[in-house]
């Protein structure tokens, strides 16, 4: 009996496969990003196109759009793997399921959160944020998008077995994201105003750390139940 694979090699294996799969499916992984752009465009259309006024609503627009586009991508996180039996094989492999699912969530973040963070400066500028303050916007979004992926994974795992789980997934996940949204939007608002935002960043970091520690356990437990 050879020794079981290390955590590092398992993570690499899982992430490589998921990334390869996402890229094989063509441009599908870009859709949440496009969704993000479309929703943020709705804000000037439904509010006020003047940049000086848009500036006030920019943090909210950024964060709400980020949340919604993250939610959209969540459906796909586990559904395919549940339907073709991959989750089953993961559960039966004897490898730590929580770790494998964390690797999957990391890929979700890489494909959804990271592009969003990279595009956010452009969007923020379009929503009236002063250009000098834009770099400061990135840090809250990085932490926040990681946490949103983690919390969303819990919702996705819980609603795995359902045929039309989409709306329920959103309903379950959104209240749980309130702390991230409050701290994150506040940090972004302070950043746009050119003020120090260390306080909310600490709070964001705390929530992110908690999510990183606890979410994979909940996700694994939910997947095991739904894979029966």
């Amino acid at each position: 009996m050879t020794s079981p694979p290390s955590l590092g090699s398992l993570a690499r294996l899982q992430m490589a496969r998921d990334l390869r799969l996402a890229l094989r499916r063509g441009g599908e992984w870009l859709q949440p990003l496009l969704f993000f752009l479309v929703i943020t465009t709705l804000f000037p259309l439904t509010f006020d196109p003047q940049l000086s006024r848009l500036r006030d609503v920019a943090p909210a627009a950024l964060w709400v759009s980020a949340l919604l586009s993250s939610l959209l991508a969540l459906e796909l996180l586990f559904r395919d793997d549940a339907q073709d039996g991959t989750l089953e094989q993961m559960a039966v492999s004897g490898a730590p399921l929580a770790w494998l699912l964390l690797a999957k969530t990391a890929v979700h973040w890489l494909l959804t959160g990271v592009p969003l963070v990279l595009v956010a400066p452009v969007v923020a500028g379009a929503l009236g944020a002063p250009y000098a303050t834009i770099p400061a916007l990135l840090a809250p979004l990085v932490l926040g998008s990681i946490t949103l992926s983690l919390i969303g994974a819990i919702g996705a795992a819980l609603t795995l077995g359902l045929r039309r789980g989409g709306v329920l997934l959103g309903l379950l996940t959104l209240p749980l994201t309130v702390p991230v949204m409050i701290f994150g939007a506040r940090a972004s608002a302070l950043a746009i105003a050119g003020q120090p935002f260390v306080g909310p960043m600490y709070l964001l970091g705390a929530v992110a750390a908690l999510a990183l520690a606890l979410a994979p356990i909940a996700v694994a437990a939910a997947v095991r139940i739904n894979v029966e």
Partner: protein
Amino acid sequence: MNLLEARQVHLWRGEIHVLRGVSLSVAAGQCLQLTGPNGAGKSTLLRVLCGLLPAADGQILWRDADCTRDASPLQRECAYLGHLSGHKGELSALENLAYLCGLRRRCSEAELDAALQAVGLHGGAQRRPLRQLSAGQQRRVALARVILQQTPLWLLDEPIANLDVQGQELFNGLLAGHLASGGLALIATHQPLAVAEASLLRLELAA
């Protein structure tokens, strides 16, 4: 020595008492054939044994260690082939196998190639997206996965369902080799298994 034992395993699915005190014991080199009508619980029993379904009552022992609550010692030494293959259509046979086996141990390219050759998949077919292969070929890839995992215990649910005569002969050969090297297998199937009577056990589940 009995490697796998189940004692009085019970399971309810909703209100239906699917497994009613099922007991079995299988030693190295033995093959247990599970038979019974649809809905009798053959698939359910296999899933309980590999830890996917928690048993409501009873015990499951692997190498004399209790695996009822924590099935990981058994899971590490078992290959499960159920109704779902765990394959991705967009990935090739090589890539699918590399992933599924990589979950358990490092597999070299040569090993993957050899396993696929053994089930009749050569060269180009190994690299095409799996969805371009026929159902029979995809089943063979699943069998290759079972062999590659190099585990003593095989839990197979209707393994030869989509296979032609050649495929079934292939499977019989693989099974014989597995049993000869000290492995054991539990197979849910109605088709006759080409296993020596001395090594063949049968368990019939009633509906």
